[in-house]
């Protein structure tokens, strides 16, 4: 049984294209810029405790609302907190929300999508669930969650992550439907491979490209989503800042301290821009047919 050829095993067939994709990615200057910015941001977020000149929550009422200076690169806020340090810590919260929300949506959405695409019987149920979630106003969910759980990082992650699940399910399901019909999958079926093997070894690895692309679109969307939630008063718990919370709380103080709005805002724009550039590069690299590069 096992000797019968698996004519085109997925892993072997992937190695080549993946390497080529990586090479294409490395040659794309915009994507590389994005990657570098993302890496710097992630490092800064991870090492905020070491890099930041002040603890995020340290207040100094005598140094409130100072414009940017050598002492405080990004100035201070109304409680005299160093804005540069807070942007670094805020970066941590925002990157965490972005990654965790996407992680959550993938963890739930991918299995559902695989099942729906692979087993016809399950499809109607999963599809109804997805339709229900899509027809459900996302903001009601976010406000509701924040009311039940209180504003916190976890709430933000769950609210954004859940909102992204339907998209992940759809992408995965579409890919599964497409891959099922592929020759090598039919061959594996003919060779008696079990469903688990089919899904694990043949379908999922080949759906990964689409999922990576989806993730790079979703991460910046989640980071902006966190900012929007904060704007509506549903952000992470103080005194830990997130970029969105910093922006939202600085907004009424715009006239007194424009720097309080400018720097966190720039940080969000740069971060999402970098993720978008990287995502574009990845898409081009993984699927050159689409981009005609």
């Amino acid at each position, binding site marked *: 049984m096992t000797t019968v050829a698996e004519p085109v095993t997925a892993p072997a067939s992937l190695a080549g294209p993946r390497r080529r994709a990586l090479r294409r990615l490395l040659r794309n200057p915009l994507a590389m810029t994005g990657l570098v910015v993302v890496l710097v941001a992630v490092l800064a977020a991870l090492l905020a405790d070491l890099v930041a000149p002040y603890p995020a929550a340290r207040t100094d009422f005598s140094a409130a609302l100072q414009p940017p200076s050598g002492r405080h690169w990004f100035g201070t806020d109304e409680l005299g907190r160093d804005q540069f340090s807070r942007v670094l810590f805020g970066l941590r919260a925002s990157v965490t929300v972005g990654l965790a929300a996407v992680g959550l949506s993938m963890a739930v959405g991918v299995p559902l999508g695989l099942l729906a695409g692979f087993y016809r019987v399950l499809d109607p149920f999963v599809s109804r669930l997805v339709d229900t979630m899509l027809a459900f106003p996302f903001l009601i969910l976010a406000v509701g969650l*924040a*009311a*039940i759980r209180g504003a916190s990082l976890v709430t933000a992650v769950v609210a954004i992550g859940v909102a992204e699940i339907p998209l992940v399910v759809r992408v995965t399901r579409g890919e599964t439907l497409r891959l099922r019909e592929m020759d090598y999958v039919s061959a594996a079926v003919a060779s008696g491979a079990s469903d688990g093997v089919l899904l694990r070894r043949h379908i999922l690895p080949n759906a990964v490209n689409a999922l990576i692309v989806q993730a790079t679109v979703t991460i910046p969307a989640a980071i902006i989503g966190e900012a929007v939630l904060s704007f509506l*008063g549903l952000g992470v718990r103080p005194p830990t800042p997130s970029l969105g919370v910093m922006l939202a709380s600085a907004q009424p*103080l715009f*006239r007194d301290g424009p720097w309080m709005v400018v720097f966190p805002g720039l940080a969000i724009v740069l971060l999402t821009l970098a993720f978008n550039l990287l995502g574009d590069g990845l898409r081009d690299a993984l699927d050159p047919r689409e981009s005609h590069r």
Partner: protein
Amino acid sequence: MSPLLRPAAVLVAFALAASACSSIGSDEPATSTTGDRPVKAGGTLRVALAEEPDRLDPTLARTLVGRTVFSAMCEKLYDINEKLEIVPQLADGLPTISADGKTVTIKIRSGVKFADGTMLDAAAVKTSLDRHRTLTGSARASELSSVAGVDVVDPSTVAIRLKEPFAPLAAVLADRAGMIMSPAALKARGEDFASGPVCVGPFKFSSRVAQDRIELVKDPNYYDADKVKADKIVYEIIADSTTRFNNLRSGDVDVIDRPAATDVDALQADSNLRLLTSDSLGYQGITLNLANRDGVTKPPAPLTAPYAGPVASDARVRHAFELSLDREAINRVVFRGKYQPACGPISPSSPYSSDAAQKCPPHDPAQAKKLLAEAGVTTPLKVSLVVANTPDGRRLGEAIQAQAREGGFDVQLQPTEFSAALDATDAGKYQMFAIGWSGRVDPDGNIASFVTTQGSLNIAGYSNPDVDRMVAQARATNDQAQRRDLYGQIIAKVQEDLPLIYLYRTVNFTGVSAKVGGVKMYPDGIIRVTEAGFTE
């Protein structure tokens, strides 16, 4: 208000304005009225409100912002003046109170017509007061709970029978409980009165679009119609303070309710705009959960985990917390110094204020640490504080957190959406809650519900028989000096037991375009536009 009273009122306004101005520490003259400027007839006055009013039914209405709209279309038996004194509005003179204090007789102003043209008489007053007392879900029922019955003595006189003497009654009738609705309209609309309210007022209800606007038009039937200049008042709902301010600057609205403390300087600096200020009747502070285990109005009981702790069980710990807070600094950093530090529930501008009522503990973190050591708690002591999940609420929480750290506390902030916070704290599921009170004219309204054992807003679960007794005593006497003295004693007791830490008092701000005159604001924070209009 009787026309005769008005010149005096304006003078008082100037005096108040001067004091208000010094109290907010600004160089620009700030006033509580634009009444000095002659205005011409005609025009539509656009007023931006900070929140959406709830039902426009005096019996069911519960929001502060709703009172602003009512002030232009639903007059009351009594009103207050700048000095927070009770003055007659639809009543003809102050009430006469029987010797035993249990019968209050009120004369009704004659020749007054409702907006639908029907006449105001004693029967109409009785109908409204009875509705306030008995309608299902009435927000007025508890304010009027001391009333046993209302009798029509003659067409222009009603007598209110009380279960026991109740000094705050006139003040209660100077608020929504004193608003008289047209019996004809009540009959026609019933519980749906809110969709077409008919009262006595300078303006009458015209239309309302939810979350957008409420429009009132000049009422030709109004008894003092000559005083009314504007043709129309449009209240627009603009929740965001920055946007509200931007609209005033761009001329899209003429008056704005509650500009943010952070916008006040810019408002004063702008020569096209004017700032009205008045002290607030309310207070803001922290309520501490002492014994609210089973819910508000349930008997006090020792707290259980996770809310139990030294804060609830040991007054020294609560005092330590208060000593670690710097009210001046909170006002400075959180509210740009625009508000006023406060240590008690009675506004300094109230006739019931006294030295005892305004007594303030110092800011002393060293003493706080000492008290904590005496109480035998290990520092830093972890405590949780529920704050409103708004930029201001979070900022206040962060300032408290930073200061309490100096005193040996590790404050965990719980920013909570307002409805959820009210629900949790009613149920006793909290340790500390940063919450305030919009304030009432009579000090009873700022004190009784919060600190008496059975008080409907006593979310601290506080119970002190002495306080209960003195609150009842203060209600039963009409002697102002005696009441002032009693409230001083009550506040001293409360400061000793510390179920509430009073922190600051907001200042009512209203932004007005320089083209507009005749807008008034008293310490109740209501924007009065009866005589407002555009300047000549």
